[in-house]
């Protein structure tokens, strides 16, 4: 078997009895501990519960149960609640936060037989895009430990990219799944708003919060989404829409489909490597038989300010007491961002919410309605070093963060599904990423188009220099 810690590879090894589920769980915890010493990923491993879950999974495997996540070790961003267990959410203010409920996302992965081996570091309260955390420490990028891993699902990306676990959950309010996936060469999927329940996941801004997976391959992302997707009455914003079979047509290719791409002027500001990777990705799709249609992104002009306004107001409302009573317990950037939310007038907040539907309709009229998916860049350039991007709350920090997140936030605002994936590598060997943006509740097409690109390029098969892969 290849040295691959993907869900599919580990699942195959388990079903072929090349490894046992308990052995795999122990190996994953050991790999996370090793990785933690190098890149700072692990809040807490949970060997006893993980082994108990693994034993149950093994019984099911032995009985011939074919479910694909059975026995696969995962670890998750430390904001997915498990009743009775601390979820500190990357913060000091929630250091003793012990929820009484279990998140629906974890319950569904438990139900699918996945093994949860521990809690992973994240940006403080999920409010940040570079991966810096002034309170609990900053994970490092496995492709280059001097560089940021992206955030806010920072250690989720690092742990999957380095091969410690098969997948990790992240949350995405303004790019927090897709940004770290882009920085670390992974597939990161933000589903349609309401597609995956947020119940029991720490809220940052309920209007824009999404839950989704970070994975090593497109097929793995489809497998995890299949387990997560579906209506949940515990999440009042959950959508009651039918769930597709995400693997049914994933290998069908893209011949005859139409890819939307931004006008050339919308791509101003991309680095040479990012622009080259983007152009090559478009050419790859054309070579695969896909038509291309240019679409103006003018409709998204104010999406960044709109997202910042909503995130600021909703985040400040949630943490208002702590802002007043324990300001010194926050990192400086988190405090500055939350405090600015206290000054968003209610009228402007409500107008920002109302503009979302208009923005989506405008993009549809600009041509999005006529394409199967839209391809846009991810980051403008190679992820910066941890040191050079450690702007804390210095003047102008918001502009820097906005620039970092500019290709991501608009799709939280619109609520449409978006998938980040590697589209090449720069001269230094760092991954360069792009994003496919789909129509509401059409994750199946998004995954199918991403899978065609993955199969053609093999970019998701490259591994970073720092690897703790323990695949059997």
């Amino acid at each position, binding site marked *: 078997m290849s040295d691959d810690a993907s869900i599919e590879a580990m699942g195959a090894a388990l079903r072929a009895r090349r490894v046992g589920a308990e052995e795999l769980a122990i190996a994953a915890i050991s790999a996370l501990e090793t990785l933690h010493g190098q890149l700072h990923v692990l809040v807490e491993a949970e060997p006893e519960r993980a082994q108990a879950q693994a034993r149950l999974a093994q019984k099911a495997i032995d009985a011939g149960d074919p479910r694909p996540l059975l026995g696969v070790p995962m670890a998750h961003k430390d904001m997915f609640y498990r009743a009775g267990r601390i979820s500190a959410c990357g913060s000091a203010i929630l250091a003793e936060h012990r929820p009484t409920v279990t998140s629906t996302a974890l319950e569904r992965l438990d139900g699918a037989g996945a093994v949860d081996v521990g809690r992973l570091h994240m940006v403080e309260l999920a409010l940040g895009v570079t991966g810096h955390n002034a309170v609990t420490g900053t994970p490092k990028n496995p492709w280059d430990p001097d560089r940021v891993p992206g955030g806010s699902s920072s250690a989720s990306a690092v742990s999957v990219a380095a091969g410690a676990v098969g997948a990790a959950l992240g949350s995405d309010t303004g790019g927090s799944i897709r940004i770290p996936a882009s920085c670390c060469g992974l597939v990161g999927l933000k589903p*349609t708003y309401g597609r995956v329940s947020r119940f029991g996941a720490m809220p940052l801004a309920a209007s824009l919060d999404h839950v989704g997976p970070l994975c090593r391959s497109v097929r793995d992302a489809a497998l995890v989404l299949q387990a997560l997707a579906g209506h949940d009455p515990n999440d009042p914003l959950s959508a009651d829409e039918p769930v597709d079979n995400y693997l049914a047509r994933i290998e069908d290719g893209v011949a005859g489909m139409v890819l939307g791409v931004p006008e050339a002027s919308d791509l101003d500001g991309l680095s040479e490597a990012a622009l080259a990777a983007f152009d090559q990705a478009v050419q790859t799709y054309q070579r695969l038989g896909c038509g291309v249609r240019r679409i103006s992104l003018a409709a998204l002009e104010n999406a960044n*300010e709109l997202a910042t306004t909503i995130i600021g107001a909703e985040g400040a409302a949630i943490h208002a007491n702590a802002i007043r009573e324990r300001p010194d317990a926050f990192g400086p950037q988190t405090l500055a961002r939350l405090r*600015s939310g206290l000054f968003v007038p209610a009228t402007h907040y409500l107008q*920002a919410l*109302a503009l979302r539907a*208009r923005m989506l309709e405008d993009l549809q009229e600009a041509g999005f309605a006529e394409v199967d998916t839209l391809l846009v860049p991810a980051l403008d350039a190679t992820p910066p070093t941890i040191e050079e991007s450690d702007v804390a709350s210095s*003047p102008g920090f918001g502009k820097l963060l906005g620039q970092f997140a500019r290709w991501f936030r608009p799709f939280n605002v619109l609520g449409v599904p978006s998938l980040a994936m590697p589209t090449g590598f720069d001269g230094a060997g760092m991954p360069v990423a792009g994003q496919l943006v789909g*129509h*509401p509740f059409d994750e199946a097409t998004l995954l199918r188009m991403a899978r065609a690109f993955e199969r053609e390029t093999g970019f998701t098969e490259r591994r970073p220099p720092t690897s703790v892969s323990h695949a059997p």
Partner: protein
Amino acid sequence: MSDPDEVPAWLETWQGMGGLPSELEAAAGAAHRQVRALDRAAARLRVDDEPWRIRRVLAQRARR
């Protein structure tokens, strides 16, 4: 509003109430710039553009 530490005019009310704590002035300025950037877009809103319409539009435009 080009200076991040500048206090917007609408906060003069706060000043009249005894002053805004200095550590909040930058936060107020940042919020002010954000919402002003949305003013032109917000001018397009109609009376029936209610804040949570996005969920209905997502459902209407769902593709499977």
